[in-house]
């Protein structure tokens, strides 16, 4: 399971970076989405996957007796998902406005701000 998740994370990172490097502005968004998901999976994976052990201390004990599933990575991922969701929504609107105003979806054409004025 861990190996599979590790491979998927790797693929998501690679695909995300590759898409971000393409010229089309829509592929940029896809790259952003893939990369965001890759990061979330990575945090999930690095929090050590433990199956079927909820982090609840039994009534007759004061501390955890055996291994438990760490709840912190899930809290982190939840926060990260919400944030990246907001950013992606913003990105889509930004790209749409850019396309309408500039009339191009080619990132190589977006070079007027670098020119001398």
């Amino acid at each position: 399971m861990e190996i599979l998740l590790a491979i998927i994370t790797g693929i998501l990172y690679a695909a995300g970076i590759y898409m971000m490097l393409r010229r089309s502005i829509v592929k940029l968004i896809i790259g952003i989405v893939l990369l965001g998901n890759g990061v979330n999976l990575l945090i999930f994976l690095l929090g050590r996957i433990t199956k079927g052990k909820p982090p609840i201390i039994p009534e007759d004990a004061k501390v955890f007796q055996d291994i438990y599933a760490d709840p912190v990575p899930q809290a982190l991922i939840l926060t990260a998902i919400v944030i990246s969701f907001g950013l992606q929504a913003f990105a889509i609107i930004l790209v749409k406005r850019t396309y309408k105003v500039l009339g191009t979806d080619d990132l190589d054409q977006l070079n007027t701000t670098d020119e001398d004025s």
Partner: protein
Amino acid sequence: MSNLVIISPLLVHLLFSILLMFSWQNLKWQKILTIVGNSIALIASIATFILVYDQGTQTVQSGNWEAPFGITFVGDMLAVTLVLLTCISGFAVAIFSVVSVIKARLRFGFFSVYHFLLMGLIGAFLTGDIFNLYVWFEIIIISSFVLISLGGEKNQLEGAVKYFTLNFLASMIFLTALGVLYGLTGTLNMADLSQKIVLIENQALVEVCAVLFLVGFGIKSAVFPLYFWLPASYHTPPSAVSAIFAGLLTKVGVYALIRVFTLIFVGDLFLEVLLLSIAILSIFSGGIGALIQNNIRKVFSYLIICHIGFMIGGLGLFTTVAIAGTIFYLIHDIIVKTNLFLLSGLIYRLSSTNSLRKLGGLYDQYPKISFLLAIPLFSLVGIPPLSGFWPKISLLLEGFEQENYWFVGAVIFGSFITLVVVAKVWAEAFWKEPKPVTKGKRFVDFSKLRQIQKVQLIFPIAFLSIVSLYIGFGAEHIQLLSERIANELMDNQQYIDAVFKTRADAR
């Protein structure tokens, strides 16, 4: 809970951004509220600064969860100094933006988002939890995305796409590093991380993690190979927005680098060499970039990169004297860079262009304003009694001490380039004969503004210039403060003890 004072500037900005949302339609109210809000935040930050200056590091455990489990806010000397500087710049820029930002932008909640941005900055300085730092960074960048694209002009949107992409990538790299770090140590509290990181056997992975942090924060602070988004986007939004970006957004990256590399990843020779080399290259590439530009705001954008190099270099030398130099430079740079972009906004208002080729004759037309504008320009160069001079002494001294002549050479080169660039700006914009410019339809000339509006444009620049002059002429106070901060940073046990104080008290 007297400690809650340290997060009061943050709460003031939160409160006022919510209040501003309720007065969405009423521009006059918005303008009054934002000035009042920033004044209160300034007072709150001064109170915080005095409290921490007198009583040492203060901490707040949110929700009263004990240190490594809950989120800790730590007001140490570095954090509260930066909060104070944030509130000073925030106050000045708020007054400036009341006149300089056009109504169409103000109507879409400019001030509300502006307060959120300042809140994010203050939160990032105060937090003692590394995931919480990520969250504050996101608040900063989301607000800055809105500010940079608000108005939707052609080149603004284009700049926004570049700014968005690179900053998003930086956040993702930061988050990756954070995930790896959590996997290694099982904690997110920075003081706790500092203790646990040395115990890890797999130090190679720690190194990788440190480099990921360096890349993530490096993109945000615009160091050498990662800075290309900055000159492509900083000149596109209104000058008030550029001012707050230039003054604070790159500096929050520098702050994060200082914090992470003095508290968590300490004393790694490879990283020190890496930091020094990117510092030297930043100084060279930023300086040379500034020389060939013709738009004032682009010139200043490249100077930001050049001067980031000084700070990163001081961190790379990693001695108390060098870090004191870095902190002093940080204090000077926040005020001066904010002021420079306000200045470019005023110049635009005076002559309706920012192109050095077309500008000219400002000295003949407005001698008094020109004298005022000379203060930030020459503080930037660091002509002796002014503020840019003093931190360079510490940096050069330590460079010679460690026989790192590349860095010494780079600092001298950087200062010299800055001098050349400022002299060029002065000669072209103030002394040369002006060329005729076609003014835009909606452009309102400075002479047609009402008296109060003129004051609102000039007061912030004068205010920041006075702060700059104080940093220059009261250099001994700032030097003492920087040395105290540097001592606190180098001896990170103080920080750790302050965070875990409640736990020690309970025992």
